[in-house]
């Protein structure tokens, strides 16, 4: 078959959230299973840390993760863009906790939250989704005896990760449609169609998976 020259891809949209970034760093080469286990242990360690040390642990971890992102040549602009979605939560939570419990608690909670999300982003940006699926399939293989299909578990994880940027896209499309009709200040004009569109998208995805025999 004749080889066709690929067109230039369009400018990337916000739907790059957690998308794999090809590279040859040590983090890219680390096995997917070890990254997922490290992520799980980091999550447990940070959330179970003694409250009086949370701010020190949180900020130190956050600093270390930023250092890893720089050392592994990940696109820092994209990381910052992906983290920007947390701004409202971090500012609101931080301000409230500062007022209620002081700066140590506020810094502890916000730095822990940012560190956990950044760690998740580093893991997903350096691990192809296929590798994550393979790990989940291997990890859940013993559950086959209970009637659980490991391929289904892997597929569910993949669809969940893929679903987050898809949801953002659906909401952005719906907001644009509402704005185009002068309804940008009507929450119902955004929420109801966005929920319906999400369900419709889920149905179409399900049909496509069935058509490809992935669910067989």
């Amino acid at each position, binding site marked *: *078959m004749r*080889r*066709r*020259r*690929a*067109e230039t*891809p*369009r*400018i*990337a*949209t916000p*739907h*790059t959230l957690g*998308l*794999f970034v*090809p590279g040859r760093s040590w983090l890219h080469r680390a096995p997917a299973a070890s990254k997922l286990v490290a992520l799980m242990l980091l999550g447990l360690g940070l959330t179970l840390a003694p409250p009086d040390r949370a701010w020190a642990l949180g900020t130190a971890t956050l600093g270390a993760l930023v250092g890893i992102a720089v050392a592994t040549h990940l696109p820092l602009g994209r990381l910052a863009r992906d983290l920007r979605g947390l701004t409202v939560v971090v500012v609101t939570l931080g301000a409230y906790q500062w007022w209620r419990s002081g700066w140590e608690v506020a810094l502890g909670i916000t730095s822990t939250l940012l560190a956990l999300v950044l760690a998740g982003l580093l893991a997903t940006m350096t691990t*192809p*989704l*296929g590798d994550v*699926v*393979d790990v989940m399939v291997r990890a859940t293989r013993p559950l086959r005896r209970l009637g659980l299909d490991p*391929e289904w578990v892997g597929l569910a994880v*993949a*669809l969940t*990760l*893929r679903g987050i*940027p898809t949801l953002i*896209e659906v909401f952005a499309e719906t907001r644009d449609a509402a704005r185009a009709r002068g309804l940008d200040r009507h929450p119902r004009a955004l929420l109801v169609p966005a929920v319906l569109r999400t369900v419709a*998208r889920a149905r*179409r*995805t399900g*049909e*496509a*998976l*069935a*058509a*490809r*025999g*992935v669910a*067989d």
Partner: protein
Amino acid sequence: MVPAAIELDGAGVRVGVPGSSRRWHEILAPTTFTLTERRVCVIGANGSGKSTLARLLNGLVLPTTGRVIVDGLDTAVDGAAVRRRVAFAFTDPEAQLVMPTAGEDVALSLRRLGLPRADRDARVAQVLDTYGLTDLADVSVHALSGGQRQLLALAGVLATEPEVLVCDEPTTLLDLRNRQAVVSLLDRLRQRIVLVTHDLALAARTERVLVLDGGAVVHDGPGEPAVAFYRDLMTETPGPADVADVDVGTSPDHGWR
């Protein structure tokens, strides 16, 4: 290898009318035919049952009456085996691309073959190369153009080398250049292709064309006569809303000239 023959034996689809347990709406009347041609087009107005007919062919929709047999397999009994033989491409590739990057989406199709990881990666590279998508392997599917997405969707379903490809209006959302690229690709495939389309020029040069109207096959034959039949049919029976009579409050000289 001879591609699998597709046989509809009185296959029809009807659904219940909401709010009534005894009333039915017939989407496709019981239909009988056998497809053995390499290229078959299905044409018809919107809502005529084309997509339902297409979805019957790989078991996405099961007939409520009759049977659909592919290569001797009943879609209602051996759905998984039928889907291994019959691939399906949708109008909107967005719905079909479920993984974040082009390479990973092709890999998803290959998972069911149970290949070792290295073999699967090699197959992905080979498939992407075949369809001229190698440079896009690690690109987000969201960042692809409409034409690239449709080519990737086709590459994804063709990766497992099915015997039949059913396409539901694969060029409807594409510009002329991408439409030609997709049609040219379909032309060169070894698979039997059943193509639902509004592209009458393409249908006219097809071995066999099924014309659907009101949920029934109303014409079945070679391309040109079938397209002529369809044009006459559309002229004789205008749509439910006669748009020409709608008063939109402008004078006649406002139209395109």
